[in-house]
C-alpha cells in the first residue's frame, strides 16, 4: 500500500503536465468537450508519459552512466508515447497534424523540465556521496 502511495505521489508532477495540456486542448483545439473530462483524460495520460520518461531516464543512467543518452532516452520516451496517444485519440484526423505536434511539443517541454529535475537530483546525490567519501577516506586510512 505504501509503495502504491509513493508511486501515486511521484506521478503528481507528470499528471500536472497533463492538466496543462488539457487546458491548451480545451482553449485552442476542442472547447466542446467538458473541461473535467479533458482534465481526467490528460492527467492520466500525463502519468503514463511521466512513468515512461522516468523509466527511460533512470534506466539509461543505470545502463550507460551517460547523461546525454539519458536525456535523449527521456526525450524519445516522451515524444514516442505522446505521439502514439495522439494516434490513439485520432487527434491528427480531427484537429490536424499541427495540433498533434503542439501537444507533443508541450509534453516535451514540461516533460524535459521534470527530467532535468531528476538529473539535478542525480548530480546532487552523487556530489554529496563524493563529499562524504572525502570525509571518511582520511579517517579509514
Amino acid at each position, binding site marked *: 500500500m505504501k*509503495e502504491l502511495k509513493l508511486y501515486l505521489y511521484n506521478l503528481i508532477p507528470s499528471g500536472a503536465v497533463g492538466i496543462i495540456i488539457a487546458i491548451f486542448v480545451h482553449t485552442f483545439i476542442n472547447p466542446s468537450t467538458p473541461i473535467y473530462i479533458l482534465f481526467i483524460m490528460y492527467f492520466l495520460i500525463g502519468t503514463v508519459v511521466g512513468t515512461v520518461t522516468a523509466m527511460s531516464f533512470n534506466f539509461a543512467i543505470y545502463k550507460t552512466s551517460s547523461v546525454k543518452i539519458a536525456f535523449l532516452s527521456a526525450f524519445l520516451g516522451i515524444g514516442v508515447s505522446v505521439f502514439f496517444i495522439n494516434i490513439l485519440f485520432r487527434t491528427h484526423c480531427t484537429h490536424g497534424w499541427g495540433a498533434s505536434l503542439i501537444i507533443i511539443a508541450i509534453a516535451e517541454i514540461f516533460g524535459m523540465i521534470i527530467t532535468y529535475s531528476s538529473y539535478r537530483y542525480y548530480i546532487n546525490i552523487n556530489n*554529496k*556521496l563524493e563529499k*562524504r*567519501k572525502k570525509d*571518511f577516506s582520511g579517517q579509514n*586510512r
Partner: protein
Amino acid sequence: MDIKLLCSKNYQVLLEEFLRSRNFNISDNASIHLIESGYPIPEKGISIVFHPDQLDKLVTFLDESIFSNKQSFDFRNGRIVGQYQDSYEIIELKDIILFEASENYVYSLTNDKKYKIKEKLYQLEEMLANSGFIRINKSSIVNILYIKEIVPWFNGRLLLKLNNKLELEVSRNYANDFKKFLGM
C-alpha cells in the same frame, strides 16, 4: 557467566540471542538479572532494569560497559575479527566493502574474501555509524568508500553501483536515513 532474563517473550528472544552471542548462559538460577520495567525485581542479586522503548540504549550500555572485553570488535582502531574457513583474521575496516546478513550469519565482504562475523547487523550498524558504514536494507551495511555511483531508482529507492561491479538497492525504508547520512 549466567544471567537471568525477566521480560516479555518478544524481548526474551532478542536478548537471549544477544547474550548468547557473547557467551553468556541464560539461567533461572543466575544472580545477575536483566529485567523489563514492570516485572518484579528479585530481592537478592544484581538487577538491571530496562524500559522496552530504550532497548537500543540497553544493548549499547551492555556492549560498552559489561561486554567490552568480550567483543571481537575493535572499531576504535578500525579493525574487526572475522572467520575465514577455519582461521580467524583481523580485517581492516577500510578493506570491508559491505556486511551482509544471510541465513542467521553476518558476513563481511572484502575484495577477495568473505568472512563470517560474530556481531549482529544491528550492532555493526550502531558501532560503525561514524566510520563510513551505512545500513541500506534489511540485510546489508555498505562502506560508502566503495560506492561508485548512486542511481535514483523507482518509487523512491536508490541503486548503488559499487567499485567491484556489485549492485545493491537501498530499500525505501532505509532511503531517508541514507540521504540524511549523505547530508541531503
